[in-house]
Structure formats: C-alpha cells, structure tokens
C-alpha cells in the first residue's frame, strides 16, 4: 500500500514539477500546514540548539525520577526501542539521541490525566546517549542512557 502511494507520488511529482519549483522557491511550504510543529528544534544539529528551540532554555537538572528503558547494545540503529517513565508531574517528555544529525527525535506533550510514560522506537546514527528530558513545573529534568549502535540507521 505504501509503495503504491510512493509510485503515485513519484508520477505526480514529475507531472507537477511547476508546483515542485514553487515549493523549493519557498512559495509553498508544506510545513506551513503545521504551525505548532517546532521546526527549529527538530532541525537543530546540537542538543543545546534543540533544547533552546523547544523550551527556550538549555538548563537541565539531572533526576533519578526519570527512567529510560533502551537496549545497551542496539544491533540495528534503524529501530531502537525506547521507553521513558517518570514519577514527576510531567508536562512533556522529549527524547533526544545525542549524536544524530538532528538530535531531537520526539517531543510528547502530555494531557492533564496522562501518565509519565511513553514508549516508541527511534533511529540512531551511531553509539550515543539517549537523553530523556521531562518538563515539570516549568523546570527541565533529564537523564541519559548510553546505547551502543553496531549498524547505523540514518541513511547510507
């Protein structure tokens, strides 16, 4: 199903190259659809830039109330299961892979009744720390876990 869609997309992109040129010229930005998506934070190439783009602050307080569940050694960097659990009253949980080209992988904004737990799978380019940043009461708390990657999962 996905490959079918990609076919039609490829065909479509040839046929509508005029629109494609408009997109590259910045006249039509598909990303304008999502105003809330923190573009600067996701395109940042350092952890600090990602943090300031996301929270406007880079001050992290280490916390033992955040637990990261991730493998010690990830054989395939394209799929690294990561779970973050926290006892803090979390407003948001963000997952950062320190040495990725764009370190910020995901930022979860939790509703009022949502528990401090998220689980997902991320890509990692190389061995690095996975950092979980929890925003609670206006402050940022974090913890990290080293994940060894034997085969990178960011392109090739």
């Amino acid at each position, binding site marked *: *199903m*996905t490959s079918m*869609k*990609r076919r039609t997309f490829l065909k479509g992109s040839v046929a509508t190259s005029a629109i494609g040129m408009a997109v590259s010229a910045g006249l039509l930005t*598909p*990303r304008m*659809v*999502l105003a*809330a*998506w*923190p573009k600067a934070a*996701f395109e940042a190439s350092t952890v600090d830039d990602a943090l300031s783009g996301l929270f406007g602050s880079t001050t992290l307080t280490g916390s033992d109330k955040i637990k990261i569940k991730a493998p010690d050694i990830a054989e395939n960097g*394209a*799929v*690294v*299961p990561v*779970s973050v659990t926290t006892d803090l009253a979390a407003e948001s949980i963000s997952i950062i*892979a320190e040495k*990725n*080209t*764009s370190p*910020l*992988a*995901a*930022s*979860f*904004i*939790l*509703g009022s*009744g*949502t*528990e401090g*737990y*998220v*689980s*997902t*799978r*991320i*890509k*990692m380019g190389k061995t690095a720390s996975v950092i979980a940043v929890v925003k609670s009461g206006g402050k940022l708390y974090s913890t990290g876990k080293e994940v060894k990657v034997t085969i990178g*999962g*960011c*392109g*090739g």
Partner: protein
Amino acid sequence: MASIKMRAKASGGVTTIKALISHPMETGTRKDKKTGKKIPAHFIQEVVCAHGDKTVLTANWGAAISKNPYLSFRFKGGNAGDMVKLSWTDNKGNSDSAEVAIK
C-alpha cells in the same frame, strides 16, 4: 487508507494505548540506490490522541522516529466502550486517523 493499528485497554482506572502506524519515515538523507539521488524527507510530524473531546497526547516527531512507528502511552480515566481517536499528519500534509473503543 488504514494506516493505523491501535489498541486501547482499560485496567485499574488507567487506559493503555498501543498504536502502530504504517509510514515510510524517510529522513531525507538516504539515497536511492538506483538513481543515486536523495530520497526526499517524508515523515510524520504530529500525532494527536484524543479521548472524547480531551486531548491526552500530542506527539511532535522528527525524522528520527523509526519506519512504521510504534507508540505506547497511558492515561488516567477511560472506561470500556469509550472512543479514543488517533490522528497523524506528515510533512507532506498527508494525514490519517483511526478510532477504536476502549476494551
């Protein structure tokens, strides 16, 4: 297009959501082996999950989320039979949503 597989289960006053979305999640840095050209970035940017009219989770994703993303989280409340809706939007403006009843 059914791109979302989702389960919602209530237990002890807490509802657990598990979802799998089928999506290529291209980073934009990978090259097509045949043409040598870069495959354009194509990834989910936002996932929103709502229980009734209340948003329980908004996830902002980058391209570093794995292909065919998996997502799991828990929220307080939710009774068997309540509807939970999950929707996603990607960087090309495509979107999809699915709704399931809590078990």
